[in-house]
């Protein structure tokens, strides 16, 4: 059984004034197996963030269904959703979204604190994780005191500390320079090797080429998908770039 099952998602935004409607997602369906590392690609405005927000249960779809670990999200109440999000999902955002009022340590511990863990347990999980992400020495610092890459590492640690079933990442390298991006993508690969399921939204070909599978989204629908199989990162990069060119020129590459 798939870890994540997405069926016919549709999302229509109604603007507050005037009532004009924007169809951000038309009909999106796909499945995600446990341990998969999947990238979702699409142009700006294609509906990637919308999709991720719905998967994260931060927003509700107009119609369609999301099933995670065998449970349908549509039936959950606000309170249950929060608890569900806390224990099953981890987030990494483009602009890190660390709380400026917390030190890195406290930012990373936030989900555990909200879950009511004991402080001893928190420390036990924090130390090895921080070492793995290379931020052990920065824990006492505040977000404004460290670089973007380090902030993003802390954000990843925050996502991983609850040992979630699925990591959702929205353009995690979008605000980083290319060197930092590379090391971050390597980190994602390592995390995935260790068995973590990851869904990453991006419009960067380089970022997507690290994934094992790439979904292309256009006009609110899944347009195409690529499997990495035995391809190297460079080969994958070329395949993705080709697909994007085809998409842009309107060629029919529907799988």
């Amino acid at each position, binding site marked *: 059984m798939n870890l994540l099952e997405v069926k016919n998602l549709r999302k229509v935004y109604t603007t507050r004034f005037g009532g004009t409607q924007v169809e951000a997602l038309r009909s999106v369906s796909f499945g995600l197996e446990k341990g998969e590392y999947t990238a979702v690609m699409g142009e700006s405005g294609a509906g990637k963030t919308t999709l991720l927000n719905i998967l994260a249960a931060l927003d509700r779809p107009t119609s369609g269904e999301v099933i995670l670990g065998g449970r349908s999200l549509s039936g959950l109440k606000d309170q249950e959703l929060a608890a569900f999000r806390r224990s099953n999902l981890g987030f990494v955002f483009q602009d890190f*979204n660390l709380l400026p009022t917390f030190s890195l340590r406290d930012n990373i511990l936030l989900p555990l604190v909200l879950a*009511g863990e004991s402080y001893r347990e928190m420390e036990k999980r924090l130390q090895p994780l921080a070492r793995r992400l290379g931020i052990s020495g920065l824990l006492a610092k505040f977000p404004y005191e460290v670089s973007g890459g380090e902030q993003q590492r802390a954000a990843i640690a925050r996502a991983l500390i609850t040992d979630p079933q699925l990591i959702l990442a929205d353009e995690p390298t979008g605000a980083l320079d290319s060197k930092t991006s590379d090391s971050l993508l390597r980190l994602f690969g390592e995390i995935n090797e260790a068995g973590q399921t990851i869904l990453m939204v991006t419009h960067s070909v380089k970022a997507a080429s690290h994934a094992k599978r790439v979904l292309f989204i256009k006009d609110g629908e899944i347009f195409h998908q690529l499997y990495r199989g035995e391809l190297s990162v460079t080969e994958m990069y070329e395949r993705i770039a080709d697909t994007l060119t085809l998409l842009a020129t309107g060629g029919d590459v529907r799988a």
Partner: protein
Amino acid sequence: MPKFFYPKLALSSIKRHLQLYGPYLCASTTMVSMFYMILFVAENSGLSKMRGSEVLGQLLRFGVVVVGLFAVIFLFYTNSFLVRRRKRELGLYNAFGMEKRHIARILGWETFFIALFSIAAGLGSGILFSKLMLLLLFRILEAPIPFGFEVRLEAVLITVKLFSALYLVIFAFSVWQVRSAQAVELLKAEALGEREPKARWLLALLGCVTLGAGYYIAVVVADPLVALFSFFVAVILVIIGTYLLFTTGSIALLKLLRRSKPLYYRPKPFIAISGMLHRMKQNGVGLANICILSTMVLVTISTTVSLYVGLEDVLRTRYSREIVIRLDSYEPEAVAAVQAGTEAVLSRHGLEAAEKAEYRFLSLTAFRSGERLLTEKEVEPGLTGVRTSLHFTPLEDYNRMVQEPVSLQENEVLVYSNRGIYEHSTLEFLGRSFAVKEKLASLPGDGFSRTQTFASYYVVVRDMQVLEELRRNLTETEGRSAQTSYIRGFDLDTSAEEAAAVYRDLQESLPRKDLIWVESRDEARQEFLAMYGGLFFLGLFLGTLFLLGTVLIIYYKQITEGYEDRRRFSIMQQVGMAGSEVRSAIRGQVLSVFFLPLAAAGVHIIFAFPMITKLLILFNLTNTALFAACTAVTFAVFAVFYACVYLATTKAYYRIAAA
């Protein structure tokens, strides 16, 4: 550049920021209006004809100064807040190539429109409501209401001048604020302040010490006259302490709390402590302002209300009888002349004296140290004690006033003090030791203690012989004769007009005018009314003004915080907090920050209570229960009002924070 470019830009930017400028406009309009009104009332000609108008005039002119000062400080403060909030927008203008002098022009036009609006609207409403204020004051003073409607051109001119000057300075200050900042800084101005605040232990400690010292002074002060001076010292200490504790003390405390890991790493404290830590850094001063303004409102209103409500009480304390005659001698012939003169006047009016009280006194200022009462000459350096006024009176006079006569031995005395029960069993004076047979809780028919300003001791001795002996001894040791007096007080069972006629008659017909003073409670009532009524009016007026200030500060505080919290709470939601949990966390935090100043004001009031009680003694108000009740009611009303403001402004906050 198109015609009217800057004025148009300025107008549209005021419109766009109505959420910010609306309350500011309201507040400045009200300031102008209130300033005109108090000026109008203070200069009103109807008042000068009133009895006690001198005191009243002084009070009201004092009010004018306070309102003016408050307006200046307050508008300055809110404006600097506005400029800070708008730095980002101004930075954008700057970044898009507008020069700073052009920005200054926009600011200039904005200030001009704001000034124009608030002065015009303020004067309009001020003129409209000035009559109402006058009616209120005359009502309080129980004076006949004057007819007609008046606009005082002079007051209008002063108001216009003051506020034009004020806005000019405000404009200069805003320009300076913008000028001194770089474009990048302007853009970033709002993002600043996210730095973790440092705990400044020394300042926090200093805050504790100053606040403690202020409280200590307020609590231990014994003498009303000393209280007057200590009051100012205590107020200043408490204000300093409040600012220090709100700004540094709170941060130090929160940091201390954060050190305890098992306590800190739980959902509620985790969010609350970290949130408050940053909140206090930015808002410590604002909260301290609210706290001090609230305290001012509470003190002003509770004291003036209790004085006004307790007016009759005060009069009864000060004038034990409707008519009191004082003769500066107790020689039998002079006393007899006064008695005869009084009876003559009364019988002419067909009246009889009721509740007669008569005392003969030998009085002097003395210095009390334990059970010893020392004359000026006897005081040795290094001796600790209090200056008191000391009165001896014969048993005969006392017994006339009580149901069960007392008898005394040669060396026995009864002692009464207006500062609580006398503590010792003996009393030493001029080398004589008296045994205190009874410590009196009151001196029947008292009211001669004049004001309650000084500690007074009344010593009832066996007879006139003891009194005369003391007098002789005093003349010898002091080299001057002690003051003697005869006091006769009585009530009249008649109309106020008749009583006034008796009073005038007594003043004219009694012999030895140089030695005689006649006082009438009713006459005094008018003067007391002018003073306490004036204070009451001023209390209400200033209380309203301070309240307005409090509300505005609260409003702006909520708005700023709303913008800052929005991001925080959206992140929390993403990390796994339910919307309802987020809302309850917001509520908890806002609630604690919001009601902290009120709670602190409450504590200030509690500690100020003993001192203010003493101060009120200077105004002859000894009814502590009345003052306690007034304070409690004022606090309750204020708390309700505060809660309403909370609810109203919190809506604005949620609209922003939860967007």
